[in-house]
């Protein structure tokens, strides 16, 4: 027991002592009250018996006998002198008018006048009334008859008995109280002695609860409790050890369970991060695990898959049959790995499904279930198709100029005496077509790099006015421009834009090249730059053949070439505008096309001004 608990125990002992004194006092008070109550009842009964008996006896006497005559002593006086009852108040003889003929009254008592009853049945009786001096008076009355005639009434009054004790009772009570007072301290010390080891046990139990070790396990007590206390101490020590062991085990199990939960969460997030969905079924074919992606793929709902059978997993019959066959296949030893590509009309997806049997690590012949891997190959198919189309386009577009080169070179070889006209034409064609191949390869490389995200953007602050002047001067030197009217129009104080100069140069060059290529003889090309608060606009406007409305929305698609005869007359590979679009997008810019067939086209590129780009970034 530690020091902190001692005062508590002392307070407890004091409380017990006070309690015992209080309870002994209560016992004494209750005993006194019972005695007094009993005494009062006895007095009332005695008055009743005496009153009724005595009033009848006195009523049978004559008035003279009652009052006394001559030297004889009247009965009333005898009564007074013998003090027949300590509650006796008065004895009186009254005539029929209520006047007192004789009376003997105890001190401090006033006899109240009596109303004479009229009916003979009411001549004998008793009544209660409040005395003029306080307290209740019980009166018994009876008629006095002489020669059959009513002469007077005899009245006997008794004061109502209070709660009192008689001498013998007081003596008995004194002895009882003495005995109780004597026994109380004895009981107190005895109880205290018995309680002492119990309070120690209580202390130890509290220590047990609070997990504080008690140093005092040796409880000195009397023989009867000593054994018990020793056994109790042993049990407490054993309980401590057991609790320690349990606590250690619990800590271990909590740590292990947290570790398991963490490992499970990590494993699940790893499985969910995989680009395919995984499903595990046990040996009976019930689903025991699925990764998240399965619902998106098979159109199932979360929570309805776990525990269900493989054949009920999915509404698609092809999948269900395949899964069941996989599972059946896993169950036989001669397992053959097989996979399937299945189209799911429910989710409009194509999935590749692979199944693998799951064997126990300890016993390799014991089958634990099946692991099924679903892979979404919808987009793979599309990508493959798109890639295939892309390669076919590239091959075709490369082959066309090569075809021309081949034909002209062979023609020159076969015609050693070829005319000068043919030689010049062949040289020009070879020059143009190699240029076309070269430009196409450049565009293709740029486009592929942008699409693959491998293009290294070298953004720098570019003053649009100077940049466009440079492009204009370079393009003006082009021979094909000589026959056209090429102009540059720049707004005053044009701002700067963060651009990759080389890429945007390719972009604007492509637009101007198209404006040259698809122009009419003697047509116009305008390179215009304007600005508002937010953006800078670069317009490349031509007076060429224009673009039909149905072609306008396809014009930026890769390898798109219009079927228009005017377009087909001009060489092209359908990559230029696609590249322009990609470069503009790379700079977070916009491109717009305004065109009417036969009247010309206008391409408008807009870039955010440098200060606005900063604002956006912030």
């Amino acid at each position: 027991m530690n020091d902190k608990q001692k005062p508590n125990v002392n307070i407890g002992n004091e409380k017990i002592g006070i309690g015992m004194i209080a309870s002994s006092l209560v016992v004494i008070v209750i005993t006194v009250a019972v005695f007094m109550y009993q005494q009062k009842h006895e007095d009332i009964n005695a008055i009743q018996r005496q009153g009724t008996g005595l009033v009848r006896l006195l009523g049978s006497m004559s008035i003279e006998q009652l009052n006394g005559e001559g030297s004889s002593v009247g009965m009333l006086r005898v009564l007074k002198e013998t003090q027949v009852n300590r509650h006796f108040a008065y004895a009186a003889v009254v005539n029929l008018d209520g006047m007192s003929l004789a009376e003997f009254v105890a001190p401090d008592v006033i006899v109240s006048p009596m109303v004479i009853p009229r009916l003979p049945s009411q001549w004998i009786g008793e009544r209660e009334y409040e005395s003029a001096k306080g307290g209740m008076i019980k009166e018994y009355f009876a008629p006095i008859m002489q020669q059959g005639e009513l002469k007077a009434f005899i009245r006997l009054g008794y004061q109502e008995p209070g709660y009192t004790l008689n001498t013998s009772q007081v003596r008995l009570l004194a002895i009882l109280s003495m005995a109780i007072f004597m026994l109380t301290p004895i009981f107190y010390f005895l109880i205290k002695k018995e309680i002492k080891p119990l309070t120690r046990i209580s202390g130890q139990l509290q220590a047990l609860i609070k997990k504080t070790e008690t140093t005092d396990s040796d409880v000195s007590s009397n023989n009867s409790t000593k054994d018990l206390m020793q056994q109790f101490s042993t049990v407490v020590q054993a309980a401590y050890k057991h609790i320690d062991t349990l606590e250690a085990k619990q800590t271990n199990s909590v740590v292990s369970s947290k570790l398991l939960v963490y490992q499970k969460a990590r494993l699940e997030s790893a499985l969910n991060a995989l680009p395919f969905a995984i499903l595990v079924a046990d040996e009976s074919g019930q689903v025991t695990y699925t990764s998240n992606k399965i619902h998106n793929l098979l159109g199932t709902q979360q929570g309805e898959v776990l525990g269900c059978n493989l054949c009920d997993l999915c509404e698609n019959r092809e999948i269900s049959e395949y899964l069941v066959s996989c599972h059946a296949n896993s169950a036989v030893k001669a397992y053959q790995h097989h996979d399937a590509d299945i189209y799911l009309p429910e989710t409009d997806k194509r999935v590749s499904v692979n199944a693998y049997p799951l064997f126990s690590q300890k016993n390799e012949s014991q089958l634990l279930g099946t692991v099924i891997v679903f892979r979404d190959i919808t987009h793979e198919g599309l990508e493959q198709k798109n890639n295939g189309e892309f390669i076919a386009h590239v091959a075709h577009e490369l082959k066309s100029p090569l075809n021309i080169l081949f034909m002209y070179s062979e023609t020159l070889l076969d015609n050693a005496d070829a005319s000068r006209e043919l030689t010049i034409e062949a040289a020009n064609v070879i020059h143009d077509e190699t240029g076309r191949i070269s430009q196409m390869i450049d565009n293709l490389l740029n486009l592929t790099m942008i699409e693959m995200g491998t293009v290294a953007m070298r953004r720098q602050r570019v003053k649009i006015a100077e940049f466009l002047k440079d492009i204009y001067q370079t393009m003006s030197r082009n021979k094909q421009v000589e026959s056209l009217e090429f102009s540059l129009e720049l707004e005053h104080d044009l701002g700067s834009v963060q651009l990759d100069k080389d890429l945007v140069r390719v972009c604007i060059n492509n637009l101007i090249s198209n404006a040259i290529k698809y122009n009419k003889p003697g047509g116009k090309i305008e390179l215009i730059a304007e600005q508002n608060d937010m953006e800078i606009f670069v317009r490349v406007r031509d007076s060429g053949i224009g673009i039909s409305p149905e072609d306008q929305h396809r014009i930026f698609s890769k390898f798109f070439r219009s079927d228009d005869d005017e377009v087909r007359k001009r060489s092209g590979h359908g990559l230029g505008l696609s590249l322009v679009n990609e470069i503009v997008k790379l700079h977070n810019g916009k491109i717009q096309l305004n065109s009417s067939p036969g009247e010309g086209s206008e391409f408008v590129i807009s870039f955010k001004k440098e200060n606005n780009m900063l604002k956006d970034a912030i």
Partner: protein
Amino acid sequence: MNAHKILIADDEPYVARVLKLVLQKEGYKVTCVNNGKEALDIFATLQPDILVTDVKMPHLGGRELVETVRTLEGGSNIPVVVMTSTLESENRDWVHDVGNISFLGKPVSPRDLVRVINTHFIHSKAS
């Protein structure tokens, strides 16, 4: 002797031009058009002795051109030379239905084309 008439349909102007040069040198009368539609427009009036066509052309492709020509008067048995790239070769099933057709893979050798056309006329002369 009337020169044989050859109709060439190709959307690459340079190809048509060089083939025309080579075949004219061989003594043929050559007409060039840009696509299948133009070829059909001119076919009835020209009545060519042989048709040389590319496969992939705007408006009307080589296959559609040949199939339509076979239904025209004077076109049911006209020899046809189709210039095709290897990529298009897998779609050659249709040739069984049209008959009297020969293929030249791209890049087309003008030398080979002349040989094929000459062979046609030698055979027709012999028959």
